[in-house]
């Protein structure tokens, strides 16, 4: 499968990339790890005439934490997220989730920015970003703006990213020490998208759940922030009634398509089951 022809650019700064993208007009695309875009180009479902490779822009890489905010450069690879001692300490669900994306070779090129910005509902990081209430930092010709992950996704492959804009970083408020976390993903095999998956974050205080945040992967046109599911846990001791209420609230918003991963009703129940397992594992990790 041979992709269509394109002009290739390799900028070294974000400003240069944004200018190139503006000059290219609507047939220009940025290239991150390429593991969504290149397969689409091979199928001629995407035929950009200009590709702007972001892989050599140093300011788009790196992970740091400062003043209670984790900042991850958009071109940080999933392998770099997995290898980060800092993330393993302060926000381990990022590592747990990244390890369930695709396979080692793909994670060496696949980036956090590409995964969240592409708008593919099968991608794992968007729901996690919604559960973490992350913000996306976006650069364009007229400057920089931030969009909450919970407001970013409009439909499959449609996001708040406008023509000419580049996602540059992801910002996450560092979760409190002792928080519980789990990313539960049901998949048919390594490298597959989720049949359903759930990101669960919670905090405990005096035996009660002080706060909970839950989001779902690949059971809708977009990642789904399950606000009511989290609310059903807050203030409870995570007993059976509370967990059942959270599972029911998550199942109520799931709208998966029927595909090779199973019929609609099955995938809704898998989503509920991922939430149930996620709550149990997150609670067991909380202190």
């Amino acid at each position, binding site marked *: *499968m*041979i*992709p*269509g*022809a*394109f*002009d*290739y650019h*390799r900028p070294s700064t974000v400003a240069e990339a944004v200018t190139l993208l503006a000059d290219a007009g609507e047939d220009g695309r940025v*290239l991150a790890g*390429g*593991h969504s875009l*290149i*397969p689409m*180009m*091979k199928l001629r479902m995407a035929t950009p005439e200009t*590709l702007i*490779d972001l*892989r050599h822009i140093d300011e788009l890489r790196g992970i740091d934490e400062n003043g209670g905010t984790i900042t991850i450069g958009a071109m940080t690879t999933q*392998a770099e997220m997995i290898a980060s001692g800092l993330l393993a300490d302060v926000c381990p669900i990022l590592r747990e989730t990244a390890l369930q994306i*695709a*396979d*080692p*070779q*793909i994670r*060496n*090129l696949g980036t956090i920015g590409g995964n969240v910005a592409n708008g593919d509902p099968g991608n794992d990081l968007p729901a996690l970003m919604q559960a973490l209430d992350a913000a996306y930092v976006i650069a364009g010709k007229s400057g920089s703006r931030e969009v909450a992950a919970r407001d970013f996704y409009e439909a499959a492959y449609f996001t708040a990213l406008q023509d000419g804009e580049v996602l540059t970083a992801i910002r996450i408020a560092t979760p409190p020490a002792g928080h519980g976390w789990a990313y539960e993903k049901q998949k048919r095999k*390594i*490298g597959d998208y989720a049949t359903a998956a759930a990101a669960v974050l919670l905090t405990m205080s005096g035996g009660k759940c002080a706060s909970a945040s839950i989001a779902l992967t690949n059971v809708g046109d977009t990642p789904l922030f399950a606000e009511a599911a989290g609310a059903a846990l807050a203030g409870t001791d995570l007993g059976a009634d509370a967990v059942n209420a959270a599972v029911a609230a998550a199942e109520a918003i799931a709208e998966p398509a029927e595909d090779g991963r199973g019929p609609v009703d099955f995938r809704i129940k898998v989503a509920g089951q991922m939430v149930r397992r996620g709550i149990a594992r997150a609670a067991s990790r909380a202190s």
Partner: protein
Amino acid sequence: MSKMHVKMTVNGKPVEGLAEPRTLLIHFLREDLNLTGPHIGCDTSHCGACTVDLDGKSVKSCTVFVAQANGAEVTTIEGIANPDGTLHALQEAFREHHGLQCGFCTPGMITRAHRLLQENPNPTEAEIRMGISGNLCRCTGYQNIVKSITAAAEQLASMKEAAE
């Protein structure tokens, strides 16, 4: 569409050529450089038969444009054997432990295992299985591949010990 001048280091040797940016790295390696060790299996980044090292990391060369690899260091299966031409411990182990049947996945499998053992010289069985999870084999059921990589890790460790 115009061609670009591509330069890279492949198996330690500087190479260059003219190629359209859209040329996939696997095609450049196989068709321009005549390095036909890395295979095209699925052409959809699932099977791993095209695995090579790109700047010290395993990648699937069917899903990398040659333009992206311009200036990079690439290692293919042709660059794995020892400088004197004898087989690398991994290649010996695959032969000894019957780590292949038809052999189609083997170049990708060994190139991936070679990088895995540099990242983690003493992997557990589970780490080996996760480490090669991006490489599909339709013949062996993986058992003998895991056995081969385990044996090679032990062999490399004892060679390292002997050298010290």
